[in-house]
């Protein structure tokens, strides 16, 4: 205790404030205030480094500034210090790469070849005739919260008498971070309880980050050369749970923030590649549906009469009802090519 007090005295003396302890009325001086904040930043960031790196991945590209880079670097170093014996992958490396990524031009040019394409429905995988098709809609916030795709699609599908719908979503979830939400276990329980004939998936918004195991141990940071393979195997594992179902995987749309958008483009290409190797899986691209004529982000899109209507929410990620309807119509079109939908 004495030692701690002495340390604090020494620390405070750096600021040349000797009256602090003697005069209780004036003990809270500006110097003490500044010292307090320095310690808050140093200690809180050290203990919350994992959360900070998490927050940085989602919001990082939106805020390119020296303060954020400094906090991320310090959080990365803290994470390294705390778990150097456990982690093989240094989170700091990811952050260094992230800062390189931030130097990308404001608008990422997407060539026509890069834009994900909807994979045609495979006739081999046509479903047997049934009076009622059990349809499962799963995914992240796109599926879970109102105004995204899930709610609108569910409402639209409910009018078809030969479909029985179950929607299950989890905010902030994905396939990268099973320590936060384990979609593989959830898939098993959904399959066993619902036995879906059709599975509609829209996931990945939160996945362009480090891949962890269920305990939270980082396996591959996003820019690691093995990340794409690891993520693709997560997608395959998810699909494998529904071997007897027909799967429609809805691709993610172009995003407002260019760097985030380029990561999403990468995820879409992974889904598309996986879909090519599964007979029972279709990939539905939403990139062209929700972008302007150049494949770039546009908050507003024309309706049937050419009137520009707000399609995206303010975060530049999620969809408005209008945007959700665009995706929903496309999914129903693809679904209708596989089974006969009866109203």
């Amino acid at each position, binding site marked *: 205790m004495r030692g701690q007090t002495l340390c604090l005295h020494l620390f405070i003396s750096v600021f040349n404030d000797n009256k602090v302890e003697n005069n209780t009325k004036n003990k*809270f001086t500006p110097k003490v205030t500044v010292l307090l904040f320095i310690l*808050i*930043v140093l200690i*809180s960031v050290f203990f919350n480094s994992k*959360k900070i790196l998490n927050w940085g991945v989602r919001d990082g590209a939106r805020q390119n500034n020296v*303060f954020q880079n400094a906090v991320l670097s310090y959080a990365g170093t803290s994470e390294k210090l705390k778990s150097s014996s456990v982690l093989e992958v240094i989170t700091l490396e990811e952050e260094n790469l992230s800062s390189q990524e931030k130097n990308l031009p404001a608008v990422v040019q997407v060539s026509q070849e890069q834009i994900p394409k909807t994979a045609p429905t495979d006739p081999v995988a046509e479903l047997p005739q049934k009076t009622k098709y059990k349809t499962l809609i799963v995914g992240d916030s796109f599926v879970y919260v109102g105004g995204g795709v899930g*709610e609108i699609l569910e409402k639209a599908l409910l009018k078809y008498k030969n479909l029985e719908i179950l929607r299950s979503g989890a905010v*902030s979830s994905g396939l990268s971070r099973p320590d936060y939400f384990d979609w593989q276990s959830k898939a098993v329980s959904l399959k066993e309880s619902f036995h879906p004939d059709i599975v509609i998936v829209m996931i990945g918004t939160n996945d362009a980050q480090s891949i962890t195991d269920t305990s939270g141990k980082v396996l591959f940071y996003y820019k690691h050369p093995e990340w794409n393979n690891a993520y693709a195997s997560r997608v395959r594992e998810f699909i494998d749970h529904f071997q007897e179902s027909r799967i429609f995987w809805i691709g993610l749309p172009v995003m407002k923030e260019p760097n985030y958008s380029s990561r999403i483009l990468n995820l879409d290409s992974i889904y598309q590649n996986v879909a090519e190797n599964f007979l029972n899986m279709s990939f539905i691209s939403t990139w062209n549906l929700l972008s302007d004529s150049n494949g770039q982000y546009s908050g507003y899109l024309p309706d049937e009469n050419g009137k520009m209507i707000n399609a995206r929410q303010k975060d530049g990620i999620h969809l408005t009802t209008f945007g959700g309807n665009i995706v929903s119509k496309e999914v129903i079109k693809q679904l209708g090519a596989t089974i006969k939908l009866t109203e």
Partner: protein
Amino acid sequence: MTFITFEFFLFFTLVLFLNWYLKKWPLAWRLFLLASSYYFYSFLDLKFLLIIFSVSIFNFLIGLSIPNKKTYLKKLILTLGIIVNLSVLGVFKYYDFFRVSVQSILSHVGLPASIPFLDIALPIGLSFYIFRVISYIMDIYRGKTVPASLLDFLIYVSFFPQLLSGPIARAGDFISQLKGGGTKGVENLPHSITLIMLGLFKKLIISSYLVLNLTDDFLAVSQGHSSLGILLAIFAYSMVIYFDFSGYSDMAVGFAGLMGFKSPINFNTPYLATNIQDFWRRWHISLSDWVRDYIYIPLGGNRVGKIRQYANLMITMLLVGLWHGPAAHYVVWGGIQGAGLVGTLFFQSKNKEPKKKNLFLGKILPGFLTFCFVTFSWVFFRSESIKDALLVFKNIFVSKELTEYISPYVLLFIALGIVVFLLEKQIVSFLTRSQAKLPLIFFFIFVILSMTVIFYAGPNIMPPFIYFSF
């Protein structure tokens, strides 16, 4: 860069140091305040900086032109100032609403016209600083304040702790604090620190948890949920909006306080109000005061007879609704508040000498009824349309289930929220006094530990603030 991020804490630490260091040189200090506020705002978008600067310069010139003129000329300049300010707000906030409305009206009468579409983002904080500059030019017109120096005025408009979501400080109150390098000492460090900790707790713990685990799901898609589940979510949303916005305001007041600035308080335990008038004296106080002084009173206020007074109240509250966004559900919400205020006044005018009532009839029952009124009206505020809001109410009655499984944690957080909003004043006062008494080392340990734990318990995704949208 919002208050709940660590980069803000780092930025603030540096600003705090230079703020106190530079006070010896008032001009350098004021220049620094402006530079730090502009730097803070530039994180959002450089274009926003150009807008705030142009709005500031325009209003500074208007402010300079008003004094020592003939009355009609003063009025003319003021009117020009208000029109331009409201036009700026209109272009950014309401342009698309008007574009779509006018287009649809014209096409109905057989005059199809295409009004150009402009993809313009609403600069965060615009609604708040436009209110600040209007109050400045109106106060000069009324002789309540004198034109400020350009530098002081630029700082007043852009002061970063109050920039994004208020509180809406008045020019006279704020600018007087810039004189001679401002205060020389931190007046009440424990109080400011308590407000920051409380704000973080409200936002990161209670509000975020309830949004992610209850209100977003239950209120966005109320179909399929039980009657009591929906009612609980409506009740929880009342907490969410209070903790979100008052949490932000607490932090704004706290951070400004650490820099030596006094801010107007924005919330005064509003859910303990015993009628709607009382509620609006306690909720978003700086906005309520603003609309009272610059809309309600110019309309005639309560000096124009009962009927006109009621009409003035309705107009004022409808405008408050519209200020939140160009959507019918906000207007309905404003209308409900207006009706509540008119009802309160009408009831008070019929009972001029209220009998002495006991605690239950005098406080608890009216307090509960006021809370229910406010809580149910938030459904219109939260929904995306009137139809969606009505659907929430409908589903309370048509739901097949009465109850459903609700996580015990959700109930725990709601209970915690109730404790905070019932005992907020006592909690703030207790924490402030206790911290002031603690030896410095224990004070440091307490604050650092509390902040670390609050951040640790916070959500895994960065939660946005509701009032940044307005």
